[in-house]
């Protein structure tokens, strides 16, 4: 005890040597979130699954279509299918993988306690949310684009010579594939936003699955005049409009679909930002 007291009086003003010029910047928070994403095994596994779903399910669907056609017992549902629809068959499954990983990116920090370290380093908080959403959105977009652009040529090759045959140069194909990638990237962003908003992995996944998969079914219980007004604007339907090859009066155009889906994304991010700033970590 006495030694400490001596030191205390010897260094009164606490003059310390020049300190390194550390500073928190937006770019550095992005760098940190990038490093955090890739330093977890679950990221690699889930992204791998997402990619696998996109490619493998497209190929399986194509093989199934081809054998049905060759055997002459094509199901009526499949009669109007195109190589594009078939190659995007895996989108439904990939959106689950990417959305769930998005939820994990944010809600996982709350369930583990990591959020305390994160917010101690970036106490202004909002840069963390924007960085997580941006980093994961870009990664999900990249993985999805790889998936759809790998799946389509192979599927197209498998179903060539059938009514579903469609080449890459066909009008709208490239736009649809880009739309599908963009849709999945935004699903990832919505996942991160829901995770940050609800701060619970289970809650985030539930809301994600409900809004993308269950709500369209529930809407069918409404009177049909309501359905027509509401249905196209649901996240799932607006999202599908982004990558559908053909559009009719009951669906939005790809551009309108993108705008509506962006609005849903902004809503989720807004809720997440509000809670992040307003409530204790």
């Amino acid at each position, binding site marked *: 005890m006495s030694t*400490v007291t001596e030191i205390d009086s010897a260094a009164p003003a*606490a003059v310390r040597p020049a300190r*390194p010029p550390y500073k928190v910047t937006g770019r550095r928070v992005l760098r940190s979130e990038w490093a*955090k994403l890739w330093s*977890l095994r679950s990221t690699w596994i889930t992204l791998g699954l997402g990619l696998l779903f996109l490619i493998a399910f497209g190929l399986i669907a194509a093989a199934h279509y081809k054998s049905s056609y060759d055997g002459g017992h094509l199901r009526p549902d499949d009669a109007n299918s195109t190589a594009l629809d078939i190659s995007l068959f895996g989108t439904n499954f990939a959106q689950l993988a990417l959305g769930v990983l998005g939820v994990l990116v944010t809600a996982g*920090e709350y369930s583990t*306690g990591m959020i*305390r*370290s994160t917010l101690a380093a970036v106490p202004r908080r909002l840069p963390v949310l924007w960085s997580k959403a941006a980093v994961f959105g870009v990664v999900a977009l990249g993985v999805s684009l790889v998936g759809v652009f790998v799946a389509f040529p192979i599927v197209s090759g498998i179903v060539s010579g059938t009514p579903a045959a469609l080449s890459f140069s066909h009008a709208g194909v490239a736009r649809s594939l880009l739309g599908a990638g963009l849709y999945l990237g935004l699903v990832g962003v919505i996942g991160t936003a829901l995770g940050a908003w609800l701060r619970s992995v289970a809650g985030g996944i539930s809301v994600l699955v409900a809004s993308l998969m269950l709500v369209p079914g529930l809407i069918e219980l409404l009177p049909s005049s309501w359905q027509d007004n509401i249905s196209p604007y649901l996240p799932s339907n607006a999202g599908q409009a982004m990558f559908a090859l053909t559009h009719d009066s009951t669906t939005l155009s790809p551009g309108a679909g993108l705008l509506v889906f962006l609005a849903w994304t902004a809503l989720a991010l807004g809720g997440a930002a509000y809670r992040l700033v307003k409530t204790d970590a």
Partner: protein
Amino acid sequence: MIEAQQLTKRYGEKTAVDRLDFVVKPGTVTGFLGPNGAGKSTTMRMIVGLDAPTSGTVTVNGRPYAEHVAPLQEVGALLEAKSIHPGRSAFDHLMAQAYTHGIPRRRVDEVIELTGLQSVAKKRAGAFSLGMGQRLGIAAALLGDPATVMLDEPVNGLDPEGVLWIRNLLTGLAADGRTVFVSSHLMSEMALVADHLIIVGRGRLLADTTVRDLVRTAGGDTVTVASEQPARLREVLAGPGVEITGEVGSEELHVTGLTARAIGIRAAEHGIPLFELSARTVSLEQAFMDLTRDAVEYHGTTTVETPGRAA
């Protein structure tokens, strides 16, 4: 330097931190003591901006924590609850923290070495023992070479070697001129490292004092003396700096400001027979228990004596 002014945190009906005023100064180890649930962790969370105060303010080196351009350089905090992702390696965890501030990899290696984590740095933090986890938390706290180091219950669950390591670390950090703020519910542990003590109970400040003053005000140098003639003995012992208390009709007196030896000699000079003469040694532990027991019993009143005033 940490300054709290009327710092208050309420969770609905419950007041976790109640109008705390204190200053934690550089160059010393300041112990933050209180029984479990006294509001220590909540106060520390408010210092680093994880919880927002209901009212009042707390600043670090003159500013709210969130307003610093490099927060990790101002305060390095080890919070009580785990603040790591178990799936990430110690190195990756530290590196992710370092990226936010532009802290070089060299510094990450330094804190890993400083905390003795070299052999496990690449392993998943989830597999760490309690002691290793604590070391990782301290490595993260030291990452930004902070002017203020704040540790919440750092010795909890550590083995004797780990406890000793923390003790030396704390005194070393204070010797560097840093502000060191350490919470504990164990007085015995604090007595070994802290110079200054901030004691809270039920969210209220009970004492802002030094270890020595705490013992003194808790009656550390009281001598109990019993005699047939308490009134006469009282006259004999009276003098400047001497305080004598005793109940009317009781043969016992409590004397401060005189040693047992001096009392015995003076009583003998005046021919007063003594039945009992004992120096009452109050341990820090006892002093702490007395203080906090009062906080529980007289919660919400002002009858609690704050030794800070005497200090």
